[in-house]
């Protein structure tokens, strides 16, 4: 774009923004066909592009937008209804405009795009005798003629439409020199085109009330003079009135400026340095213990933090920037695949660094395509399984723990874990023995393997063999992680967790053999301390694993990874539970030092190539610490042997081992009841008001489904649970869910079923002493079937997500 005229560059940038808005508006229009606001907005956008391309002498663009404008004028004036066909041709026009803009951006000239087809199509819609076609005809002919004549006749035609008592020729004559003058004077201002449209099209201005800058108004007395006396349209050029104009959808340009991203990048780098200097200062002040120095450093620290937040904010953009293209994309994809899809977007204003925004564009696109193609079923299929024919695609973005979480959920058929397993075997990615031992969740993660694609048929939407592994690679490249959850028949959720910004990231500093390393917070799930008895540590062959809430967690000793002297005992070591490559594992470190904000510094290729380090950072004492590349560590350390060993021991262990984790809940008046944790899908704290009575049974709405509720206190003959806030134990099997209500969750303990004595009552299997309290073992089967007699008949006998989410 270097050689390009500043005006043209400005035009291209602005037009792209406008087109994004246009896409959104057009798709929204299908839902609200009569919306004048939307129509006016669309009309304005096209009009602006047409106007600007007119005096930049982009004839193709102008002729294209001109016919579109005519069609839109009729729509706006209610002369024709909004139809699918209308939307189609308008969207095609937008595409064509984009194409031409792309050429302009690349070469500075229009090139020779063939737009006659699109123009003819729009013309055909216009000629469709549904009203108003005759009026518009002359205007379109002028569009294909030279731009000079068009400029005079275009507004004339519309002026007639609006039946303004004014001679069109007069308007055209007065306005032309004026607008040219403005543009020449203020090339970079955002508004010249709009100002022109205000003058050129007095009828539109009457309704729309264009925002005009002060300086524009001063420069353009001619504009004010031209339309005012003839049609008493004073509004467009009066700034105060513009402020109040209700239909000004996009204004706010007055209070913002465009800044080159490089300037922000440089600023961010400097702030990064400042943060490190601040860290050093804080440490120094702490060491010296001088009170006034500590005060000064605290102040410095405060200011540095604020500055950092401020600079980060300048780089933050709402995710809407990427999402704005989604409605159009969803519409196109679902139309081409014959799916009915309703799109819901939640959290559009969630902000993240613009660099990251750019980076998640492709993965997001891929996941959305995938959700519609492979997730949401055809309308007939959906109806046959009792779903609404229209599928629901939900995009959700939110901040969580210093990260941005982006979820793409569909309510489609879900992922068949067994099909995934079969495919993985067929592709030679895993052996049948390997997949036989894997949990459902692990099976789902196989889709992230390179060379995996579940599509039976290659469609033009997705399924070209470049699939989720690309998504994963791209997300990991920006320090993020991607995860998938799916319930067959109910839908799939893809979850991206990405850092807020790349430049400065929160990290955990850990120590290993005297050296300090940083683990990015985005990878970190939790920390576990190994006690004297090494509770929870087990061995699969030689390899240590940790039993974490009933699941075996492979352990990787950082000392082994880094080639340090082998650790003699795990006692007093710390396990950092991290997530990478879709799976989780524990990294054993000597000790945890701190969590701090670190700035990733580039490192020499010789160090990067080792494949263990993502970069380096400077600590408060000025020393260099290496940042661990967690996915790389996982790949290197967790060879398949270990994973296999863990996977195969998983089943065997749970059944053969004497103890199993038990969830202990408080019930009624001081009673404690235990149940196997493995049978519990989820724990929630919910208000008592969520429970409703339907036909004598207690139910609650849980995750959009009506779920039967078992009050454990009542079941065990202890009255009813009488609390404001309840502990809800959710058990899910296949598509069936039952909620057990108790007072509170007491603990999760390891204990053996054989420990329970036979002393029991109704609904109980026995009792034992846990934490010096008599605890009864709940007959979970009886409890669940009391609410849902068919619970255990569910075809998919697999416990969905057991123990994986708390």
């Amino acid at each position, binding site marked *: 774009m270097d050689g390009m005229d500043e005006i043209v560059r400005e035009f291209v940038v602005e037009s792209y923004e406008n087109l994004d808005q246009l896409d959104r508006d057009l798709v929204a229009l299908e839902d609200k066909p009569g919306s004048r606001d939307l129509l006016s907005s669309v009309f304005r956008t096209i009009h602006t592009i047409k106007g600007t391309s007119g005096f930049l002498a982009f004839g193709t663009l102008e002729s294209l937008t001109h016919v579109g404008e005519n069609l839109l004028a009729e729509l706006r004036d209610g002369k024709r209804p909004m139809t699918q066909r209308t939307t189609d041709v308008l969207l095609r026009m937008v595409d064509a405009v984009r194409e031409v803009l792309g050429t302009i951006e690349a070469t500075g000239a229009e090139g020779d795009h063939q737009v006659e087809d699109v123009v003819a199509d729009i013309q055909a819609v216009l000629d469709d005798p549904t009203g108003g076609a005759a009026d518009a005809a002359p205007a379109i002919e002028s569009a294909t003629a030279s731009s000079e004549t068009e400029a005079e006749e275009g507004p004339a035609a519309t002026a007639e439409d609006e039946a303004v008592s004014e001679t069109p020729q007069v308007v055209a004559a007065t306005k032309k020199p004026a607008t040219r003058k403005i543009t020449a004077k203020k090339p970079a201002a955002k508004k010249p085109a709009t100002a022109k449209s205000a003058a050129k099209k007095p009828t539109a201005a009457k309704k729309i009330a264009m925002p005009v800058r002060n300086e524009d108004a001063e420069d353009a007395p001619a504009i004010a003079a031209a339309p005012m006396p003839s049609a008493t349209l004073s509004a467009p050029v009066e700034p105060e009135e513009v402020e109040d104009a209700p239909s000004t959808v996009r204004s706010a340009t007055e209070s913002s400026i465009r800044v080159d991203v490089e300037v922000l990048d440089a600023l961010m780098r400097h702030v990064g*340095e400042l943060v*490190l*200097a601040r860290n050093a200062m804080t440490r120094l002040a702490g060491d010296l213990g001088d009170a006034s120095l500590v005060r000064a450093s605290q102040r410095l620290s405060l200011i540095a933090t604020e500055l950092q937040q401020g600079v980060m904010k300048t780089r933050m953009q709402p995710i809407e920037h990427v999402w704005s293209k989604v409605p159009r994309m969803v519409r196109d994809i679902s139309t081409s695949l014959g799916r009915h899809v309703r799109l819901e977007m939640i959290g559009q204003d969630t902000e993240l660094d613009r660099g990251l925004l750019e980076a998640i564009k492709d993965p997001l696109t891929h996941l959305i395509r995938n959700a519609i193609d492979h997730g949401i079923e055809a309308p007939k299929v959906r109806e046959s399984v009792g779903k609404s024919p229209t599928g629901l695609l939900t995009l959700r973005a939110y901040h969580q723990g210093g990260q941005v979480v982006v979820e793409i959920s569909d309510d489609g058929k879900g992922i068949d874990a067994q099909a995934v397993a079969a495919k993985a075997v067929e592709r030679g990615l895993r052996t049948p023995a390997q997949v036989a031992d894997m949990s459902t969740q692990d099976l789902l993660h196989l889709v992230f393997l390179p060379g995996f694609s579940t599509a039976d048929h290659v469609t033009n939407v997705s399924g070209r063999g470049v699939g989720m592994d690309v998504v994963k690679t791209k997300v990991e490249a920006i320090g993020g992680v991607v995860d998938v959850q799916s319930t067959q028949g109910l839908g799939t959720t893809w979850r991206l967790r990405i850092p807020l910004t790349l430049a400065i990231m929160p990290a955990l500093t850990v120590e290993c053999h005297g*050296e300090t390393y940083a683990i990015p917070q985005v990878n970190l799930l939790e920390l576990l301390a190994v006690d004297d008895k090494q509770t929870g540590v087990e061995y699969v062959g030689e390899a240590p694993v940790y039993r974490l809430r009933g699941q075996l967690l492979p352990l990787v000793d950082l000392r082994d*990874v*880094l*080639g*340090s002297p082998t650790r003699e005992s795990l006692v007093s070591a710390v396990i950092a539970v991290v997530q990478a490559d879709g799976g989780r594992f524990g990294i054993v470190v000597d000790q945890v030092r701190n969590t701090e904000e670190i700035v990733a*510094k*580039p*490192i*020499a290729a*010789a*160090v990067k190539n*080792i494949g*263990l*380090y993502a970069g*380096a*950072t*400077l600590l408060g004492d*000025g*020393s*260099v*610490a*290496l940042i661990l590349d967690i996915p790389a560590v996982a790949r290197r350390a967790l060879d398949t042997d270990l994973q296999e060993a863990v996977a195969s021991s998983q089943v065997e262990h749970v059944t053969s081992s004497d103890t199993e984790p038990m969830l202990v809940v408080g019930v009624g008046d001081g009673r404690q009841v235990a149940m196997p944790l493995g049978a519990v899908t989820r724990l929630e704290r919910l208000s008592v008001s969520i429970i409703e009575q339907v036909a004598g049974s207690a139910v609650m709405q849980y995750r959009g489904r009506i779920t039967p509720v078992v009050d454990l206190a009542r079941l065990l003959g202890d009255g009813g649970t009488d609390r404001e806030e309840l502990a809800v134990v959710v058990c899910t099997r296949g598509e069936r869910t039952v909620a057990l209500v108790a007072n509170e969750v007491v603990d999760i303990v390891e204990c053996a079923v054989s420990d329970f004595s036979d002393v029991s009552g109704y609904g109980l299997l026995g009792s034992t002493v846990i934490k010096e309290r008599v605890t009864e073992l709940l007959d979970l089967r009886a409890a669940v079937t009391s609410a849902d007699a068919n619970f255990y008949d569910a075809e998919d006998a697999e416990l969905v997500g057991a123990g994986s989410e708390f």
Partner: protein
Amino acid sequence: MQHQLATFKLDNRLYGVDVERVQEALRLHNRTRVPQSPKEVAGLVNLRGQVVLLVDLRARLGREPYADDDEPMMVVVKVDGEPVSLLVDQVGDVLELDADQFGPPPPTLEPALRDVVRGVYSLEDGLLLSLDVDLAAQV
């Protein structure tokens, strides 16, 4: 033609690099070792806020490794505009040398040295091996 070389000692031999490529010479401070790295990587150091690679020239030139109580020094050179720190035994003077003192590397030179030594200057009290900075700093 005069030539200026920054000299340093390594395993009792005198080496020199083009003085224009040298940014500074420093005492070694607070290096961070990089586990699992090639032996030529002596670690990373913080050079005024920049993380700089430390190259163990002894390893690079196939000499005996440093003992624990050695106190090597750093010669920071520019490679492709980026600083790289070379670990040396002792930093010497900057010498002005004439072209007529210069000769090709002797054929008896060890293979590890032959790649990175551009030539030899004959001094009154011995030889000065002139190193190709780009190759020497390459790991």
